[in-house]
């Protein structure tokens, strides 16, 4: 799937309608790129912008390693075509800290030792950041008890809610118990 020039020496030159010029606002900076339409947001970030915090695990939407925030909402960047996200605001793990001050989730992951190899960690942290905002906005989850009077306030976050809401982020090292604890530390 890799559409970058380096990967395909033999391909015929792409006709002009196979590529587009687009702008992504990445971690607060506008980045304008001319990309083959096949380029995903994940490959744009890693290969064209050098932001290697975002990871490629499965490349098929199954593992969550590539999770970033797009216009403030978490998404699997491996399934997003960059051309379809012209103008979007993208936040990667590199953009979460405030200068040298770690994001509270980054600090909690360190504090709780919520990783082993660390490969899934940037995706876990970006996913948790998006998840906390979703819960604050009152989004329910599969384990939220249904009620006739739909609450408008934030959804409360216990360990079960966190596990369910984070189920799109796999960890091959099985660091789940510490990941849940780190997120509990930051959850309101």
């Amino acid at each position, binding site marked *: 799937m890799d559409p970058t020039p380096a990967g395909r020496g033999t391909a015929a030159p792409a006709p002009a309608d196979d590529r587009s010029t687009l702008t992504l606002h990445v971690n607060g900076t506008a980045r304008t790129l001319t990309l083959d339409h096949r380029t995903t947001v994940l490959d744009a970030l890693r290969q064209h912008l050098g932001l290697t915090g975002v990871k490629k695990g499965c490349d098929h*939407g199954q593992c969550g390693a590539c999770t970033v925030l797009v216009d403030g909402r978490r998404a699997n960047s491996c399934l997003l*075509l960059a051309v379809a996200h012209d103008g979007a605001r993208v936040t990667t793990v590199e953009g979460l800290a405030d200068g040298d001050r770690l994001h509270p989730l980054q600090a909690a992951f360190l504090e709780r030792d919520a990783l082993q190899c660390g490969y899934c960690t940037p995706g876990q942290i970006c*996913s948790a950041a998006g998840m906390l905002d979703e819960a604050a906005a009152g989004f329910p989850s599969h384990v939220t008890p249904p009620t006739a009077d739909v609450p408008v306030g934030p959804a409360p976050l216990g360990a079960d809610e966190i596990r369910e809401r984070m189920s799109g982020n796999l960890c091959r090292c099985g660091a789940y118990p510490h990941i849940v604890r780190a997120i509990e530390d930051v959850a309101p």
Partner: protein
Amino acid sequence: MKPFAYLRPASVAEAVRVSAATPGARFLGGGTNLVDLMKLGVETPGLVIDVSRLPLDRVTRTDDGGLRIGATVRNSDLAAHPDVRADHPALSQALLAGASGQLRNTATTGGNLLQRTRCPYFQDITKPCNKRDPGSGCPAREGAHRDLAVLGHSPHCVATNPSDMAVALAALDATVLLHGPEGERAVPVTDFHRLPGDNPDQDTVIRPGELITEVVLPPPPDGAVSLYRKARDRASYAFALASVAAVLAVRDGRVAHVSLAFGALAHRPWRARAAEDVLRGATADRETFARAVEAELEAARPLRDNGFKVDLARRTAFGALTELASRAAPND
């Protein structure tokens, strides 16, 4: 992946016009299924028409108290919508039982309805598959079919429809609105997806160039309660092995309204009309529920390795009806 041209049409009319004039073009919603299948080489469009920014992103009330759901409303927004949660909990629950938080943020109503089967042979272009390559055969029939159909399959295809949302929409009597080169039409969601027959390459009755613009829900029946239950290999983030969407109203101990649909058992969401016939007007008790579910699942024809799905469906439906009855008539 094959190179492709990209277009972001300004209107529904432009999307339909270009699509109808360009054989092999594909609409792009969230892309969570289409982009995946393009990476696998299963989909090879020469033109991708991005409909995700068309102004179809609203959930609004209809005059009769139902809901109109735009085709580009994201699955997570639909599940969280206060009117959906209050009137149609089965729909909210079905959406929340599907995929992951990230995927639901991206996936759209239209794309969810048209997601393709997860049959492993369909997704592997080195294998024969009648759905992907008509006439090439169906290796799933004798091969890996543990997750596949037990109802309504044909010698040509035993695939299942993987959507949770579509099962709830089937039980809720939703209607799909389509815009095509010949104009607009409305199709009940229960007629939208097909059984495989001898042309499993057609998942639905959608015609070339047609765009899903909206899904319309009627208001909930008087006194009705609804829910969605899903049985799967993991507690979260797995496709259904069997699922049930049910709507029930009980008056004076009798079933005043019922609709029941199964998911993951067939090539389309399976509206359980035989079970509903047994239930309608009958005493709302466990004996009736068991008889009704049995009446529906009599038609099951499991394959070598998926007989367990029939039992799973039976228990899931029985549990759903029992639970709804206790809520619909708490004093009975």
